[in-house]
């Protein structure tokens, strides 16, 4: 049995576990850690995107059943993000490893700051909608979601601000292998006025598409090591599953802050090595 896939599986499990508890993508932690351990950024990128795709798939059935994913918003945002991911993946062989390492360090630092930052509630519940089902309104970027016993309506705005952010997230994902959720979710919630819960679920849906686009380009480029990716996929699914069960017994704020600090440390290590 080859040791590398097992090591990757163990690291992916830990990253997905911390990621799901801390509210960040596991690849944002995993890829910089792999690079800090000596892996080449171009080799670590497919491993990262495999964990992104696995995390997205594992969460998809629950989020679809809850009605928190806004598919129309996700597909619209993904027009930019998929184009960015394809561009980033195509460019990744032509740019220097040092630049990719800097992108990874920046991604880890932004993820760390995002994990440490606070979030407020922007969209208030509306009592007259108590009997309405959660979901999206056909033909629009609006919808409503269930927050406890209350139904909260929302309408995505400022698409012209969200699409450039999604494009940037896609380029970062294709270039470096981190998901880019740390850019997409804040872009949807802060720039497009979408509630955080919907933004997070919709981002998870879109990340699967972004990762698939990047992985297909990597596969054609011959950059996929199947057993290493199998380890990453198995680890991501196991870590996400464990995280979902541990969420009830751990204080999410403390875990989120610890993950944020860890990401900042990883960012410094990757930046120093670059």
């Amino acid at each position, binding site marked *: 049995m080859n040791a590398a896939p097992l090591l990757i599986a163990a690291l992916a499990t830990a990253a997905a576990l911390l990621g799901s508890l801390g509210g960040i993508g596991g690849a944002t932690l995993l890829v910089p850690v792999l690079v800090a351990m000596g892996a080449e950024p171009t080799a670590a990128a497919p491993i990262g995107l495999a964990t992104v795709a696995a995390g997205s*798939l594992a969460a*998809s059935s629950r989020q679809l059943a809850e009605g928190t994913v806004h598919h129309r918003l996700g597909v619209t945002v993904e027009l930019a993000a998929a184009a960015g991911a394809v561009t980033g993946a195509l460019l990744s062989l032509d740019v220097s490893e040092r630049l990719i390492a800097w992108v990874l360090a920046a991604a880890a630092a932004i993820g760390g700051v995002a994990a440490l930052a606070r979030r407020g509630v922007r969209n208030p519940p509306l009592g007259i909608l108590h009997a309405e089902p959660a979901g999206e309104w056909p033909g629009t970027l609006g919808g409503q979601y269930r927050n406890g016993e209350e139904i909260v309506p929302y309408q995505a705005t400022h698409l012209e601000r969200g699409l450039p952010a999604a494009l940037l997230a896609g380029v970062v994902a294709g270039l470096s292998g981190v998901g880019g959720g740390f850019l997409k979710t804040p872009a949807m919630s802060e720039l497009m006025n979408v509630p955080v819960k919907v933004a997070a679920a919709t981002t998870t849906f879109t990340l699967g598409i972004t990762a*698939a686009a990047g992985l*297909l380009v990597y596969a054609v480029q011959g950059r996929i090591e199947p057993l290493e990716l199998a380890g990453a*996929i198995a680890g991501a699914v196991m870590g996400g599953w464990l995280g979902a069960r541990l969420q009830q017994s751990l204080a999410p704020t403390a875990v989120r802050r610890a993950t944020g600090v860890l990401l900042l440390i990883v960012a410094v290590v990757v930046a120093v090595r670059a």
Partner: protein
Amino acid sequence: MTPGSSPEEGGPRDPKAGRFDRPVTALRATTGAVAAAALAALFLGDGPGDRLAWLAIGLLVAAPLVRVGWLAIRWSRRGDRRFSLAACGVLVIVAAGVLLA
């Protein structure tokens, strides 16, 4: 009892309940298949493990793209052409990436 109420509980009922039952089941089954194939690949190693790893990767890549295709068809059938075109656009971008690579 008002329209939309549940006869058993007397409370409000989601009129769209169950509309995603089939895709939810399909996504659960795909997740299980991907995880099982990836785990088996890890323990089988080179040869059969490689083939199972490619199966896991293939399913992982196909799942979100099939979902987008399903959305494109669903929205097109319901007259939501703008978003159906957006979904087709995403698939075209991914295909273009593969061709350019």
